């Protein structure tokens, strides 16, 4: 473990004090825009643009990301108020043992996917450049080329995450600038080269009838509901990432608004223009767009895109490892960072994983929506007034011990939420057992159901998280 990283991990266990908090509202907003605009928005925009026309795509991406963020926005206040890591605060809502289960299965387990998608985007970028330059044939292979480069990208990302924050901060800025350049290039292509008139009159190149086997008379409903669901997945996905940032905010207002608009309205532009590019070029793969643009700058765009995605891997592995080490302090730093690198590699090598981003987003919609509902419910029950002492106390004397470390209302609400989601929309087959999808979507109804059950059971069983003051 490097010295800086060791100190980071220790201090992630303890609260940040007021004097150590660097971010006012505008700083917070700027940092979250930089963190928010990344591979995930490009891929999402690409997927949406395939199935619905431009005018629908724009509002679906904006609303589909912003509204779920609003639903879970109270989650930002726990870490802002007490300066603790989010996963320490959520012990008070879930019970410390159930919190550990959610941490390992939901947060740490699902995050390997984000690493893999950023890595595979690097892989596809390099594969396209290699094809153009007629490089080694193995790198031009549609499966092995991207996978080999993705593994190298993850190892590069792992190395910098392992070295710690000093190594990361400069790379983080470079990556953000590169992505903004790529986005600017894409905007120029859509607005000037293609023209908005053409974009807004084009029909979507793919059909949900052919791709998902839905009845033709329901095609419009399914296209709208599915694309909204993918956006909701990304919107809810931020539920896991509040604490690391909001514990650095100077005020609760800065924490609340900085994350709400920084990850939402301000970052969604990174999804809107990719949607138009996908519509025009008939591909959801961002690396295809650069090639289709057909200029010398296209390959420069691919290089910038590849580098930016490697930086995204670093900025994912580092906080994941910090959370892991702060929960399991005996784990070596090198081992913690390596766990996420290996899990990212394992997801990357699964054939077809890149093409199934929609499936990944629906799974994220499920798990993050449920977690976000519980955290929101906990805030509504307590007004966020918790005992910080008892968050750290993981034995029977803690106010948040509940039943053996499990909040029964949270456990029951989670189980019902998961069952409801899966029967409403199976993330793997995209079929609806109860027939409610596409009349209602799945992520937001699951959020509301989980929240309602949690609040109701907390009152009935008299197991609300105890308020401190």
């Amino acid at each position, binding site marked *: 473990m490097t010295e800086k990283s060791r100190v980071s991990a220790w201090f992630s266990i303890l609260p940040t004090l*007021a004097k150590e908090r660097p971010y006012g509202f505008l700083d917070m907003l700027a940092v979250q825009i930089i963190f928010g605009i990344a591979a995930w928005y490009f891929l999402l925009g690409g997927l949406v643009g395939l199935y619905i026309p431009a005018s629908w795509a724009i509002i679906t991406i904006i609303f589909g990301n912003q509204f779920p963020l609003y639903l879970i926005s109270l989650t930002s206040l726990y870490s802002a108020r007490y300066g603790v890591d989010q996963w320490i605060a959520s012990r008070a809502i879930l019970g410390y043992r159930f919190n550990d289960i959610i941490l390992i299965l939901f947060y740490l387990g699902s995050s390997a996917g984000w690493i893999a998608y950023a890595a595979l985007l690097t892989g596809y970028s390099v594969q396209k450049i290699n094809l153009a330059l007629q490089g080694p044939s193995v790198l031009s292979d549609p499966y092995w080329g991207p996978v080999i480069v993705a593994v190298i990208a993850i190892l590069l990302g792992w190395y910098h995450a392992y070295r710690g924050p000093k190594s990361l901060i400069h790379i983080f800025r470079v990556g953000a600038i590169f992505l903004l350049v790529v986005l600017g290039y894409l905007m120029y292509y859509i607005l000037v080269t293609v023209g908005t008139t053409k974009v807004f009159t084009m029909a979507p190149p793919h059909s949900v009838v052919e791709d998902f086997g839905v009845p033709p008379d329901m095609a419009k409903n399914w296209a709208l509901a599915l694309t909204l669901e993918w956006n909701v997945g990304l919107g809810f996905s931020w539920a896991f990432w509040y604490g690391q940032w909001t514990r650095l905010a100077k005020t609760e*207002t800065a924490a*609340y608004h900085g994350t709400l608009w920084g990850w939402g309205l301000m970052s969604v532009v990174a999804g809107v223009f990719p949607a138009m590019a996908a519509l025009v070029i008939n591909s959801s793969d961002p690396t295809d767009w650069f090639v289709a643009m057909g200029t010398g700058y296209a390959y420069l765009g691919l290089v910038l895109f590849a580098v930016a995605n490697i930086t995204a891997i670093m900025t994912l592995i580092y906080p994941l490892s910090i959370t892991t080490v702060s929960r399991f302090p005996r784990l070596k730093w090198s081992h913690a960072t390596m766990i996420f690198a290996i899990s990212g590699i394992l997801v990357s090598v699964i054939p077809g994983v890149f093409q199934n981003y929609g499936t990944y987003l629906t799974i994220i919609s499920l798990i993050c929506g449920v977690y976000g509902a519980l955290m929101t419910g906990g805030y509504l029950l307590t007004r966020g007034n918790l005992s910080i002492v008892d968050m750290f106390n993981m034995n029977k004397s803690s106010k948040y011990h509940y039943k053996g470390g499990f909040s029964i209302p949270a456990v029951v609400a989670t189980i019902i939420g998961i069952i409801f989601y899966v029967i409403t929309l199976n993330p793997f087959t995209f079929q609806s057992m109860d027939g409610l999808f596409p009349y209602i979507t799945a992520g937001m109804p699951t959020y509301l159901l989980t929240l309602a059950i949690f609040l109701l059971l907390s009152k009935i069983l008299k197991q609300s998280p105890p308020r401190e003051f």
Partner: protein
Amino acid sequence: MTGVDYSKKITIIEQQFSKMDPKLAEELIQRIEYISKNLPIVPRIRKRDYIIAAIINVALLIAYFTVILI
């Protein structure tokens, strides 16, 4: 304080940790003292913040249904 003796922990850090890294030990002590007081440390969110967020998001909700229903 639900069974956690913070004064003992602070004494241990002062005695043992200070020899290794006095600055780090001091910062750890500050944080443990803060935990034992159990108070929020930054200005609270105001009702106005919730209202602003609600208005903008409800407007987006209306905009979404307006666009897809046209």
